[in-house]
Each structure stands twice: as structure tokens, then as C-alpha cells.
């Protein structure tokens, strides 16, 4: 559904993506991992229309989407939940969710969806009227995900949904992500720094390094720490270090 081929992105002199080629479908949870500066977030931001690729192909449902506006990407059914949640903190939770549905015009349907989510996540539902900035980190992440879902996407992209959250909350977010994919049929493409969380939730893992994709496969194949550190650090550590 989502496909990039030899994608290059430059920020001035910084060559952030150097030919990234990857695919993500609607029936799977794909997690991008890799060392800092590998270009993981740049991939998501470029698909979302925040950056324009300088070379290469970016397509959604087979149609070319390189350099399209964020609005056009949302209309095509792909929504990004940005890193650090980025809620509108001076506005209420309800207003945040309404803004997530900005591209929709069915007012009644938007109200119904908000009411349904409020029932589904009572801890958020009870706080619809208060400022989003006053919620706890976990609650804010849930609001950020629901806000992304309010546009009724076919595919949801998430940039580090686990960041700054307590382990018990991370586990819960992982369960919700799985449920979205398995029950609602929404494709998931997410970036994670928390490798353990990433391997636990993913159907397929993509490892990036230096602006390119260096591995794509099932998480089980990455259970060997030596292999992981090979991709992260570019070398196979001595046996002692691998065991430690």
C-alpha cells in the first residue's frame, strides 16, 4: 500500500535519506528501528508530506505521492502521529480530536466517533473538556493516537509512541496497536527506539542505518543480539560482549 523506492531526502547539506527502499501493507505492523540519525523519522515525515524527496519514488496505493501536501496524504488515507505527541496543549481533549477530523465534513459522524472513543478509553472520556496539556504522558499518547485515527486512515504511522512512558503504559499502547491492526484492519508503520517493545509488537522489522534500509524481516530472526548489534553498530562484537 505504501512504497518507497531509492528515496533520497536532503536538508541543505545534510543527506538524510540515501536511497531508502521499503514497503508497508495494510495487513501488517511494520516497525522501523535503527541507530540515531539513521533517517527513520525522516521516512515517516516524508511520507506524511512534511518533506519533499529530492530523488526516488514514494507511492501510496500505486499512485505517486512524492512532494504532495500533508492534506493530500491525509486524504489518501495515511496519517502520522508525530514524535512527542504534539497535542494542541492549550486546547481541550475534545477540540484536539475534532481537529484530527479536520478533513472530514460529517459533523454527526465526528461526534459519534468521539463518543465511541470516550467509551473505549474511559480515562480519556472523563477528561474531554480539560486541556490536553494537563493529561499524563500515557493519556496524552492515547489522545494523540485517537486524534490520528479521527481522520479514518487506512494506515497509521507513529513516530516513537513509547517515548517517555512507563513500562506498564508502553505495554498497554502495544496491545492497542495490535488491536487496531487485527480488529480494525488499519495498517501500522511505526518508528521505535525501544527495541524490545518494537520486536514484541512487530510483524515485520525494518532496520535502517545511514539513510538506507539494511534489513527487513520477521522479528524472530533478530532475537540473536549479535545480529542486532551488527546492524546497529556495523560490527559483530566479541562473544563476551554479545552474551553480556
Amino acid at each position: 500500500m505504501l512504497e518507497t523506492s531509492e528515496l533520497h531526502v536532503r536538508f541543505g547539506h545534510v543527506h538524510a535519506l540515501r536511497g531508502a527502499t521499503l514497503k508497508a501493507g495494510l495487513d501488517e505492523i511494520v516497525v522501523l528501528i535503527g541507530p540515531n540519525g539513521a533517517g527513520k523519522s525522516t521516512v515517516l515525515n516524508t511520507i506524511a508530506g512534511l518533506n519533499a524527496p529530492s530523488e526516488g519514488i514514494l507511492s501510496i496505493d500505486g499512485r505517486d505521492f512524492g512532494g504532495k501536501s500533508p492534506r493530500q496524504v491525509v486524504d489518501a488515507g495515511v496519517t502520522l502521529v508525530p514524535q512527542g505527541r504534539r497535542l494542541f496543549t492549550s486546547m481541550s481533549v475534545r477540540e484536539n480530536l475534532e481537529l484530527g477530523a479536520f478533513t472530514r465534513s460529517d459533523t454527526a459522524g465526528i461526534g459519534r466517533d468521539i463518543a465511541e472513543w470516550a467509551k473505549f478509553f474511559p480515562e480519556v472520556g472523563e477528561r474531554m473538556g480539560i486541556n490536553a496539556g494537563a493529561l499524563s504522558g500515557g493519556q496524552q499518547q492515547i489522545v494523540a493516537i485517537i486524534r490520528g485515527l479521527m481522520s479514518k486512515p487506512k494506515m497509521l504511522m507513529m513516530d516513537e509512541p513509547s517515548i517517555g512512558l512507563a513500562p506498564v503504559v508502553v505495554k498497554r499502547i502495544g496491545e492497542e496497536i495490535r488491536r487496531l491492526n487485527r480488529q480494525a484492519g488499519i495498517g501500522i508503520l511505526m518508528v521505535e527506539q525501544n527495541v524490545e517493545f518494537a520486536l514484541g509488537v512487530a510483524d515485520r522489522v525494518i532496520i535502517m542505518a545511514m539513510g538506507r534500509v539494511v534489513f527487513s524481516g520477521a522479528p524472530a530472526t533478530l532475537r540473536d543480539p549479535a545480529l542486532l548489534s551488527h546492524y546497529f553498530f556495523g560490527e559483530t562484537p566479541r562473544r563476551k560482549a554479545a552474551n553480556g
Partner: protein
Amino acid sequence: MLLQQAYNGLAIGSIYALIAVGITLVYGLSRIIHFAVGELVMFGAFTTWEVQRLTGSYTLGFAAAAIVMAVVGILTERFVFRFTLKTPLTGFIVSLGLILVFQGLAVVFWTANTQYVLPPLQGAWDLGAFIVIKQTVLNIAIAVAVLGLCYVVLMHTKYGKALRAVSDDQGAAALMGIPVRRVITSAFVAGSVLCGVAGWLVLSAGSISPHVGDSYLLRGFAVALIGGLGSVSGAAIAGIGLGVAESLAAGYVSSGWNDAYVFGLMIAILLWRPTGLAKGSEGAHI
């Protein structure tokens, strides 16, 4: 005396409030300190006066001024401030240049002389305790209606919410599919029209000149800072408050010190609350 001065302050304060809300909308969306707002007030006043002079109708003058100011807002954003959105400080400096451009244009069109204007409404009501000039009633009604409309649009319409979202976080707003560029342009349009409306009210003072905006510019900024830059409700309330305080002090002490009251009050309030009155109160921002 007390009632009379307080009422006069309300009339002048409603002008400050309109300008300050214009300043704060532009700042909230672009982080640009737009210093040419005094000239927008002057342009609004002159356009109203000119159209009234040609057609004999103040209503037509008001309508023409609103349209002209909306166009000025679009043009200044599209051809000037859009290039400085990434460096708001440059936007501020450019706006200083715009003051000269606007004043120069006004001198070309209307000469540098003071023009004497017959306010739209004549006469006054003597209520015993104090005298109410009919024009000021109209002025206050216009200001309250316009500011109320702003509030309703910002708080309760889809577009108003999108505007507040862009003020909060432009990148996140773009991800929601909000047309950020267009929203920023609309803030410049709204700010310019608000200053133009203030220009209507300035006409009632009886005379206008290309420099009529100068004192309103400084008071508009004092009010926007007192209210908390970026806060619409703060600007509206601080505008009325400053107008009343200035008028009372002028009545009881001396009107020769008007500037000192205004800026003394601003300094005192900013020493007490450096971010202005409305910062920190929930949901008060645009």
C-alpha cells in the same frame, strides 16, 4: 466626574482593544511583531472618510474600508511577511519600513494636512450625572460586536479552532490536513480588518492625518503586552481596562501625562506578571 471619565475611557479603550486583538492575532500565528498597525488604523480611517466624501454615505465608507483592509492584509502577507515567517525578527524590521511606505502613500493620496471630519452621528444625551455623546455609543457597540464575533469564530467554529491549532503547533496542525499557509494569511486579514474597524472609530475624534496612527500603535502594543501577547481575550479586556485607567487619571490628575499613565501601568503590570495578565490561564490563548 467619575462616571463621565469611566465612560469616556470605555469609548477610547474599545479602540485599543480592537488594535491589540489585531496585533495579538498576527503575533500568535506568525510570531511577527507587526509594528505598522498604526498605519493600518490610519488607512482604515482615511478610506472610510474618502468614500464618505465621494458618496455621502458613511455605511458605504465602512464597507469599503473593511474590504480595502482585507486586501491590504492579503497583500502584506503574500508579498512581504510570507518571506519572513522563518525569521520573525526580520518581519518586525520590515514592518518598521512599512510604516514609512504607508505614511508616504497617505501623504501622496491625501496630503500631509490634517483633515477635519464630521463624525457620522451628531449630538449627545444629557443623563444628568454625565453626558453621553451618541457617536461613542455607536463606537462601543461596534467594538463589542466585532470583538464578540471574533470570540465566537475562534472558540466555536471549525476554522477558528484550526487557527488556534496553528498558533499552538504549526507542524502538528499541518499533519491534521489544516492548510497552515492559508490560516496564517487569514490572521493577517483579520488583524488588518480589526485595525481598519479601529480606524472607523478614530474618525469620531473629528480629525485625521497621516500620523493619526502613531499614538494608537504604542497604546495597542502596551495593551497587547499587558493582556499577554498571543491572548485574544487578554487583549480585549486589557484594552478596555487601559482606556478607563488612562481616562480616569487624565480627569483626576492631568491629561498632559497620558503617555506616562499608559506606559507606567504597562511597566508595573509587566514587573508583576512578565508574561501579561492572561498567560498561564487555561485556554486563554488564541
